[in-house]
């Protein structure tokens, strides 16, 4: 049997998860900083920047998530069934976080009363922490190789799932802060540039610490994945993460504003890829390989065709949106 097609579809699935982790991560990360900003010092100012920076992109990011889930149930139905059959508590919690986040992001724009405004901020911030945590926890539960063993709760809340969740919270905080440096620079707010570059560096340190702990947990809980991440196909990506994360921290610490956003995306993206390639060819470690879970060939071809069109059409239109966002108003309305 030809494994090329299913492998390509699995690669697209991994790419969608990576895209959601990085693009969505910047978004969730901004929400985390919103939560941590507090009301004293530069807090309110930082929060205004966050609001300002997030408005245009947040709904586009959900599409990566939907696309990943569709790829999963269409391309690998047994994987979809096995994960949702066992990890439904994690998905339900992530989903509720997602909805609360969307609702309260809108609400805090319209809340007039300062007290309701603070409540809206709080719900928005907390759901920004919980959503990436639970999504990543589901990946950790999958990576542990114990999706099918023990009770549903044991499968969902294991050392692996919790450490993946914590890594993702640190990674989103890191991505969010790094992008907010860019936004602060663009809007000419030097105090906030300093504010967020310090936070980027701090988040990078936290990410390194938590990442190391998570690696130890992987070493104990999923030795095969551990070997593959450090001495197999996952290695190049693991190394990339380990080099780039401190590099971004260093650049921003020294106030060198070059390439830091690209490098941030590369660092966090590689983190996801290190797991994905480390786990290949297994979708569920030890239980289900890509070849075993694959849908019929015609379905795989259709999925790849849709992906091809998506890349051809979506990339340029996204570039246009980004360009319009970066560019000011035309003509006489320009202030």
């Amino acid at each position, binding site marked *: 049997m030809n494994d090329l097609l299913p492998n390509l579809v699995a690669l697209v699935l991994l790419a969608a998860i990576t895209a959601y982790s990085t693009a969505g991560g910047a978004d969730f990360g901004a929400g985390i900083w919103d939560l941590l900003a507090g009301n004293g010092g530069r807090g309110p100012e930082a929060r205004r920047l966050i609001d300002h920076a997030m408005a245009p992109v947040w709904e586009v990011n959900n599409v990566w998530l939907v696309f990943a889930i569709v790829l999963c149930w269409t391309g690998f139905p047994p994987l979809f069934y096995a994960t949702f059959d066992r990890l439904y508590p994690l998905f339900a919690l992530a989903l509720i976080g997602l909805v609360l986040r969307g609702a309260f992001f809108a609400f805090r724009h319209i809340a007039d009363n300062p007290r309701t405004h603070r409540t809206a901020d709080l719900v928005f911030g907390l759901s920004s922490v919980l959503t990436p945590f639970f999504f990543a926890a589901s990946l950790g539960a999958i990576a542990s190789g114990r999706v099918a063993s023990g009770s549903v709760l044991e499968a969902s809340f294991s050392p692996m799932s919790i450490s993946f969740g914590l890594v993702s919270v640190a990674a989103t905080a890191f991505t969010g802060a790094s992008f907010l440096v860019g936004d602060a620079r663009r809007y000419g707010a030097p105090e906030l540039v300093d504010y967020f570059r310090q936070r980027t560096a701090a988040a990078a340190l936290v990410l390194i610490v938590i990442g190391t702990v998570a690696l130890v947990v992987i070493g104990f809980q999923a030795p095969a994945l551990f070997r593959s991440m450090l001495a197999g196909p996952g290695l190049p990506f693991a190394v990339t993460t380990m080099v780039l994360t401190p590099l971004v921290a260093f650049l921003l610490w020294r106030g060198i504003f070059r390439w830091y956003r690209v490098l941030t995306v590369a660092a966090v993206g590689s983190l996801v890829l290190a797991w994905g390639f480390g786990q290949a060819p297994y979708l569920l470690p030890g239980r289900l390989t890509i070849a075993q879970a694959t849908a019929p060939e015609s379905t795989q071809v*259709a999925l790849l065709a849709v992906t091809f069109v998506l890349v051809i059409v979506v990339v340029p239109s996204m570039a246009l949106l980004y360009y319009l966002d970066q560019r000011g108003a*035309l003509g006489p309305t320009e202030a």
Partner: protein
Amino acid sequence: MAATLWLAGESALLPSRIQMAFTLATHVLLVPLGVALPSLTLLMEGIGLARKDPVALKIARRWSVVMAVQFAVGAVTGTILSFEFGLLWPRMMARFGAAMGIGFAVEGLAFFLEAIFIGIYLYGWERLQPRTHFLLGLALPPAGLLGTVSVLAANSFMNTPGGVKLISGQVTDVDVMAALFTRSLGYEFWHFLIAIYMTTGFIVASIYAVAWLRERRDHYQRLAFAVPFTVAAALTPVQLVIGDLSARALVADQPAKFAAMEITWTTRDHNPEVVGGLIDGSGVIHFGLSIPSLDSLLVGYSAGTVVPGLTSVAADARPSIVEANITHLAFDAMVGFGTAGALLAAWYFWVLVRRRHLPDSVWFYRLAALAGVGCYAAVEAGWVTTEVGRQPWIVYGLMRVADAVTGAPDSFVWTMLLTLVTVYALIAYFFIYLLVRLAARWKREDSLGTFAPEEGAPYGPRPGKFGRVGS
């Protein structure tokens, strides 16, 4: 082991069905404006550009703000729906995902395009030349169309599955085209597409009908009323024809559903058309108005036409009595609302053609103000007809709802349902509050002569300077 699993599945069935019904019923309210409002907005912008009418451009720009807010809410409720396939019906996707999932993949693509181009459209008002802005906006209706056809492809697969090769219940091969374009897609697509354009036209027009009743009768109000109302009214007769075609196609495609819609007990000729009324477990019809032979006449244009009855299908493979009654009443409600819409449309065109101006009767505007809500009710009723009428099947003839449901305990699903109901109530409140506030702000703008329709909306272009933000 197997028995306990089955029991657990059985107990989560009720909350799972309620949750799916609740979240879908909510989402279907957001779909019409999401898909069709861009077209109306573009039409208005086109009028504005062609006639150099700043009022039309102002209307279009305000509608585009509503479009974005509404799309954001729809994106959230739609994301929930996609997760529910795993949270509530994982066994359906385990078996049929490889076939019906392809429609959803195409929908993912469409969703992407809509999200991006709505952004471009919103940003473009002040950042692009008017012509370029309009031309880029033209990407929106086809993206909405693509999304609609692909989601309906998945739904029609559930109604008239095709394109799959099954060996002992497992899908072993998929003919992609045949799985996407199943028999019912043709009529489901046109029926739904026209329904959402009608609904959008009527609901938008109803807002300006209320404005007319409140004595606002200027160029702004006339334009904003006439354009959407004309579109909706012109589609109404088309919908009656398509609806009729759809219902008659069901006689062959899903006889049990058709029998439930008409509460026909035994297969027979000279079948009466029962308007309203309920059927009981022994096939006796109570209440309602029975018109002799009309159902047979409508199906085959002759009173001798034989139409299927509920008993033509085994009792465990057709809707229960309660489900049949729900299907029937929903169907009647839909037809009733559709017919009322057609009469209102006839009134409108009569006045327009005979007197060459818009109607000026208070009663016309009162009815027009209700037409939008009526359309929403018709969409809900139509959706209930097709979903409840398919029971007990989730994929018609191939998989029962009870066999598709999650193995999660019912307490889990009840908790999730309760949480979602609470959050949806909050979202609905925020959404309506936001729209009311935007409307008030625009009204103020009109009296002050300023213009910044996006201000105060949570999504959309950010002002050029960071300092201007904040409330």
